[in-house]
């Protein structure tokens, strides 16, 4: 189990940042919401490890792609909200583009052996 989650996290490392940025495109959100949105949207296939979510958020903040502020959550609790910056929006578009190219390329390669693959795109 521990090994499996370890390898999942490895795989997700590059994509988690991208998915966080994409999630924030729809509006400001705090950590819990971000995790929930990613999980829901992926029809619960992806599970966001909290152990990687917060470091990823801080990393994005260091790079200037998101900014943060303290505010009240939907349930009126104090929570740290993250907002996409202008640079973050550009980055999100760039990554989405790159991702589409990548999955297409992988799909082409994988498609020759298993036509039903490439579902992630």
């Amino acid at each position, binding site marked *: 189990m521990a090994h499996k989650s370890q390898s999942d996290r490895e795989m997700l490392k590059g994509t988690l940042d991208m998915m966080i940025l994409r999630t924030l495109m729809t509006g400001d959100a*705090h*950590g*819990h919401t971000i995790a929930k949105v990613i999980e829901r949207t992926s029809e619960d296939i992806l599970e966001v490890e*909290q152990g990687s979510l*917060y*470091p990823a958020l801080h990393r994005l903040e*260091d790079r200037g792609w998101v900014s943060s502020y303290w505010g009240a959550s939907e349930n009126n609790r*104090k929570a740290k909200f993250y907002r996409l910056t202008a640079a973050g929006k550009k980055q999100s578009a760039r990554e989405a583009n790159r991702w589409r190219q990548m999955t297409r390329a992988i799909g082409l390669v994988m498609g020759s052996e298993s036509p039903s693959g490439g579902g992630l795109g």
Partner: protein
Amino acid sequence: MTWRRFFRRNRSDNELQQEIDAYLQEEAAENLARGMSPEEARRRAHIKLGNPLVIRETLGKQNTIAVLDHFVRDLKYAVRTLSRSRGFAGIAVLVLTLGIGVNVALFTVVHRVLLAPLPYRDSGQLFTVYERDSHNPGRDPFLPVAAGSFAEWQRSAAGSAQMAMVSPWQDYNVSDAGGKLPEKMNAAWCSWNFFSVLGVNAALGRGFTPDEDRPSAQATVMLAHSLWVRRYNSDPGIVGKTIWLDAQPYTVIGVLPAWFVYSSAFGGNTVQVWTSVGHEAPPSLLSAFDDHEFLVVVRLIEHTNLSRLVDQLAAVQKQIEATHPLPTVHDGAIGRSMLDDAVENYKTPLYALLAASACVLLIACMNVANLLVARTSARSKDLAVRSALGGSRLRLIRERLTESLLLSAAGGAGGLLLAYGAIQWLVHTRPDMRRVEAIQIDGTVAAFTAGVIILCAMFAGLISGTGLGCRDLLASLQDGSRLHSGGRSRAGLRRVLLAIEIGLTVVLLIGAGLLLKSYQRLRNTDIGVPADNVLTMHISLPTVRYKEPFQQVAFFEQLIERVRALPRVESAGLVSTAAGEGWGGDRTFAVVEHPPVSKDDAVDIHVRGAEPGYFAAMQIPLLRGRLFRSHERLSRANVVVISQLAAQKLFPGEDPIGKHLRPTNADQVYEVVGVVGDTRWHIAATIKPTLYWPIYGNDYSVATIVARSTNNVESLALPVQRVISELDPTLPVSNVMTLQQAIGLSTIDSEFDSTLLVLFAVVALVLAASGLYGVLQYLLTQRTNEIGIRIALGAQRAQLLRLVLIDGLRPAFFGLIVGLTASAATVRLIRSMLYETQPLDPAVFVVVSLALLFVACAACLVPAWAASRLDPVRALRAE
């Protein structure tokens, strides 16, 4: 990771904590909404989150710089351990402050005085050339240049070098219309291009022109910046004004920049007034080949070098010697860089002092290393436990290094302050030292200090750190057992350190001993007369107002009569240059009654003008014949009194009285009427044969007044000065000092060097002694059990005392032998600093050895005595 995050780690960790709490609450609230019990909702939320500590750690690692973090942690640890033993830290910092302080101070002096380029444009191209006398190889080869030779040199080297000459040992009586007191000032005559060759532009006005460097030109003068500020209140309109030099009007054409100082092996750094040599010097001097009054400064053009120029000039000089066969025409040339010329005399002493201070620092480092080793040993159990729990060896060494870095950084900060103070003191006490104005702490010095701090830290830290083996871990943990013989290898390391420390101390002590002995010799040297209770002062009569010789004589005679009439003046006299006051001029003489001698055999004799009262005032004994009579003056002043050495050299085996002498470059003949005792012209120089002729006549316009009293001779200075100003209020008086003070001035270098070196040696001795004491004390604490058992089993106390003493003295003996050997090899390097003292002076070596053994015994005796008094019961219970 950013620096901002790094320094805000704690805050961002708090924020993360809050963020995680918020997440848990959100998740729990959702679970609650799904219908779970509050308990279950919180539990599920926690499960979903996972371990919050892992998140915090991940983020913490992401936000930190590992090396820096470790360093800060080590630093905190070091501060904590050091503050737990304040005594140790205080002593170590003090020791390092001393060591680093003297090193930084001396490095600053060496760097700024010996190494920093002169402040002139392209100063690497500037050289000073001298005449050289190859017939006289024992003499200092750098001889001042005759103006005639300079002119020939300049002609021959026109294509390869710019040449200027300067005569920096002139003086003027400066007065002006403002009614200020007249002053006697050091001055220089220089050729018009002197400043342009150096590349110095006037700060105000302009430099000399070729037209002003002629006898027929209008008199012009350039002022040193300090003179302009002090005497003329920085008057911006000074250029074009008239000032009076020796009662003649001179137009000020320029003021030199504040930074400008001319330094040569023959002085020049006190020159305040610059005039053009073509206007000032008599034409006969300017064409002479045997009157050496000038220094020659050369700026080489590109693509040529000094040795080529010197070869060229030497050939010219050889030609000059062939065509002018006078006794004092030299036959060669020699040169050196202008920087070397200015500081050559300081090289050996300064490098010797720097080496000595480096020894002190090395000893200081070893002491600190010793202290650290002792602490490491005392904490060996603590360290063993830590390595058993997985503390890496590297980490432990890093801790030692951090600790010693902290100590040496504190020592370095203190040392920098100490060096600053020392430099202020040096600049204040040694204004005579060349380039002293250039000494200041700059970037290079700061970098040097940082380097020294790091070296000290590495040295002390690594030595104490290398003893940290993991092999004897178990043994350390079992320290309680009586079988364990505490850290023998570490004790061995300390003994070796100690022996080296003592060896270095011996070298320092011997160097200091030699210099001290040399200084004592110098101070005890007899200048030929009793030097106490004699006051000297200098006057010079302006030749404009005292044009005729009879006017000068009349003034001198009146003056000395009045001085003799003053109460408490026992005797007084006049002389051109008093004994111990300096070179004062020399000429070669031939005996008229003897067959002509070859040029190399002519006797070079110091010449002084004297008044008969001088011999009485100086107590120079009359050995044969008589002194001058009162009618032997002016045109009848052709009699001389010679010193005993002159009599031996000129008239070996003959009676000189009644014989005649003739200067080899003149036609007058002088009759020898008397022989007097010898005197020295400089305290550290060999006695020269001396000749006196009457100061009344023989063209003297300057004189030194010599007055002797039975006691408290300084109090005569004011009455004598009053007498002078009554006779002529515009006459300045200079060099008012007792003969003792005058001699003191010429021994100041020796005094300075020996004092500093003795100071260093004493510091080294104290450090070495405390090191010896510390090591022995430490060894004894380690062996308390063993000694307790020995006493319990009936060992004699005397036997124990001997055992411990021998144990402690062994490194001292080794150190002594090493030190004596090293000294024998190195003292030759300071030979030039020693006066009538051999480098391998046996007395110094013996005294140093005995002193060192005595101190070592004293340092060992205290712990040894304590050990032999040990109460066995208490010793055995000490665990």
